[in-house]
């Protein structure tokens, strides 16, 4: 568990960070370091330079402004799951509580997790379901990428070399919406064997006006269960009917590994999707 040699820089501003990053080929951004440092120690990754975002003032802020919840790229899991501005969006607290352990939650960051794009990380599902958007900064300027365009392939996000994720934002909660997250933890790593995040807008009657379902842990890339969303929109479904819909998510192309077979993942996806949707609808009906 000894990494190869690397240089380290801790810039005080985003501009300086961008400059350092573009100045060294292969340089990597260090957020909380919860994935990058172990990867370096296991020599699964190497970088000539690590650019630490930890000393950039304001990058860890969480605030409601312009109708959006804005989460700084350096905000920790613990900050996200306990912030009052996010309290009514239960998926944040629920995902946070199921994520790793207190030590990791106090160091690791939501932004870093998204950029790392681990297929079994928790935040990608929440990011997808809650309609998030990432702000990426580089020497060339700033661009925004919607959650739906963010995850490209296994462990690969839309973040290009030289770019830093400076902010993640979500639409502020509106009436009659509810969110929820649930997962089955892999016993060793704590990552998701299946993780499902749901955002729903529902009538008091339970009729679903709109819904988004984000899934992690199942495919090699986190995804939106759009086929399920389409079948649910405009309907009031629960119980066995909902189970039946959830058992037929067309986008599912499950992985198989030491910890769970593809068949089990597919089955769990149906169970967890239904349970999470029901919880989110109940919340929407009360909101």
């Amino acid at each position, binding site marked *: 568990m000894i990494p190869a040699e690397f240089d380290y820089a801790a810039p005080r501003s985003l501009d300086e960070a961008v400059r350092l990053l573009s100045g060294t080929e292969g340089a990597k951004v260090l957020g909380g370091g919860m994935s990058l440092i172990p990867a370096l120690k296991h020599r699964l990754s190497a970088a000539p330079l690590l650019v630490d975002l930890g000393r950039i003032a304001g990058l860890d802020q969480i605030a409601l402004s312009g109708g959006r919840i804005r989460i700084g790229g350096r905000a920790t899991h613990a900050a996200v799951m306990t912030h009052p501005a996010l309290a009514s969006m239960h998926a944040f607290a629920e995902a946070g509580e199921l994520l790793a352990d207190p030590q990791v939650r106090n160091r690791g960051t939501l932004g870093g997790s998204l950029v790392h794009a681990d297929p079994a990380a928790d935040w990608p599902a929440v990011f997808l379901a809650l309609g998030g958007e990432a702000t990426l900064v580089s020497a060339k300027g700033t661009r925004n990428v919607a959650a739906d365009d963010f995850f490209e392939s296994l462990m690969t996000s839309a973040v290009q070399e030289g770019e830093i994720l400076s902010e993640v934002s979500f639409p502020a909660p509106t009436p009659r919406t509810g969110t929820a997250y649930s997962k089955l933890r892999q016993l*060793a*790593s704590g*990552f998701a064997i299946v993780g499902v995040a749901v955002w729903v807008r529902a009538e008091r009657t339970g009729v679903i006006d709109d819904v988004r379902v984000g899934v992690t842990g199942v495919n090699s890339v986190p995804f939106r269960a759009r086929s399920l969303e389409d079948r649910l929109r405009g309907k009031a479904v629960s119980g066995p009917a909902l189970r039946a819909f959830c058992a037929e998510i067309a986008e599912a192309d499950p992985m198989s590994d030491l910890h769970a077979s593809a068949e089990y993942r597919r089955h769990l996806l149906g169970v967890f999707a239904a349970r999470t949707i029901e919880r989110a609808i109940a919340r929407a009906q009360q909101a």
Partner: protein
Amino acid sequence: MALKPVMVGERIKRREDPRLIRGMATYTDDVKLHGLLHAAFVRSDHAAGRIVKIDATRAKAHPGVVAVFSFDDLRGQVGASPCTAILPGMKHVPHPLLADGEVRYAGQPVAVVIAKDKYVARDAALDVEVEIDSRQAVVDVEAALQAGAPLVYEQLGTNLAVHLPIAHPETERLFAEAHGTVSLRLVNQRVAPVPMEGRAVVAHWEDGPQQLTVWTSTQTPHGCKQQIAICLGIPELRIRVIAPEVGGGFGQKIPTYGEECLLPWISKKLRRPVKWAETRTENLAASAHGRGHVSQVEAAYDKDGKILALRGQTIAELGAYASMLGPAIPTFTHLLAAGPYTIQAVSWDIKVVYTHTMATDAYRGAGRPEAAYNIERAMDAVAAKLGLDRVEIRKRNLIPVGSFPYQAPTGAIYDSGNYQACLEKGLAKFDYAGAVVARDRARAEGKLAGIGIATFTEICGLGPSTGTAPPARAGTWESAELRVEPTGAVTVMTGASPHGQGQETAFAQMVGDAFGIDIDNVNVVHGDTDRVTHGVGTFGSRGLVVGGTAVHMAAQKVLAKAKRIAAHLLDTTEERVNVESGVFSVVGGARKLTFADVASAAHTWGVAIPGEEPGLEAVARFEPTGTTFPFGVHFCTVSIDKETGQLALERFVCVDDVGNIINPLLADGQRLGGIIQGLGQAMCEEVRYDESGQLMTATFMDYAMPRAAMFPRIEMDSTCTPSPLNPLGAKGIGELGTIGSTPCIVSAVIDALSPLGITHVDMPLKSEKLWRLIQGAAR
């Protein structure tokens, strides 16, 4: 006035903890020496194969690399990796310190790089080119016994290291006469001990004094000294082994490993101190594993559910080589096969088998958890066959009160016990009747709910050295030396070198009480072969039973001399001196002397004691005359999510009997840790190799350790049946939790699944496995 003991029996906080939790303790990796070099091992990527080439050219080119060694450098200069349990008739090939032309498991050390720091050493180790012509490996222990299986050692012609058919003359007759029989195939999966601190070694050969000092994270510093001496041909009197702070062991640090012999050789060769601290992946891949038994267990019973006889076959994984005690571990599975029950005959056929995997050795319980698992599963199976309640069948089979010492058909002699009282207390604490009502109500609502039970005993404090214990070529005694200063302060030197048990606290309580002195006036020293001249170590729940008894004996010797000195000072005869909690007085007289008064006199401060040598000290060694048998009953309740197979442990209750307890706080800690470790095996832990012998569980991303969030508060209580085999009446506690908790939760899960007609599940109880069983039953 008779003073009551003031410390023994009290929940005194561990005196070790302040330095540990404040980061002020010295572990092996904290040892820093002038000119220290660092070692990094190059380990085999293949489980089986011939080494074609080892090229260290590029590695040696790294600035800061001092040397690279492979087997060719050692040839003829060193012995083999130690094994002290080569059983009679065992097929055995000595295991080299570095691979000798062949590799036999993934992770086997092939070469070692020595550099100025650990970073350079690791960088260079990655540049040692090792070319291996790989062969087909055999990983599965049953497949290894098939004709035509790849052989771990071609020259042996078989993977069967040793076959131990242990037959009882009455078994076959009892089976023939039985009302019925059950037969179960039980897998006790291979697990990794995972101490918090991995193994680490610092070796320092000094050419001037011709002295070798080795710091190593071990449970057995004296045995390690002996094994280094044998392996390297250095006289023991030139070797000092220090086990500084040791961060857990669980049996994994009983063996002396190849690295512990190799680093001293390197230090001597380079005339520089050298350090190695394993990585977590090295610990998971190349430090001994535990368990790894596949057993067929048959029980014959009468119409009342009394088990008459057992017939078992165990295939035990030895791994790629015989670790220190590895081959002997399965013999305990036979010795304890009958558990706490009046079974008349036990026959057990044991095959110890080589595979292309890391070696197995003692792991918390070492053969006894496997035995308890076998008999408890069989007991539940017989209960199910006869429609008997699982508590009721145990009541019918438990060895009756008043039958002790009890000789089991395996030859084991159980020292003392009152199983019925322990069971009754457990039933009340758990509220068994209430738990049954709650379970049945949950079932009526369509839920999967179960109750688990295990009644068990085990074997602790092995002895005597000449006895039935496996031929470990080591004594099972323990030593203690007490040195009393003129002020009455006492240094206790114990050979029972701890690795987290709390001897510094428990032994200080005992000695403080014996002499009526404050606990802060007692210093317990351990883990240094120059300070503690002889010793064996801490394993097999022997720290208090054997090591503590030696301390007690040494204290009695000191007291005897102190009494003679007091008689002289009090101007009376020895017989008329009364000693109570360190206060010496004449029977019927008013004059009193404290222990400090006597200690100062013993050092001839102003007085001469006729007929006595100056000083006050004593050495004692306790040789057990037999083994102790702690026992207990564990209960739990579980629920299983029908849709996902997820298991939830809802309640866990234990009532244990370990005889007299010196410190209930330490005892609770030992039990709690043991219970969680046993539940860890049952619920999630599993070492997995793929078919080619690659370790798939080489990091904590894949090797699942139990986590606090998986468990409810563990409810603990005790009964007390002192052991007659030692003056403390202690029975041993370190492994007990691990022995009862594993079968207990499996019993609960099978109970939960029984309404579906499911009668068997193997560990670990992972959700997909349970879901598949539920799905299968639904079809």
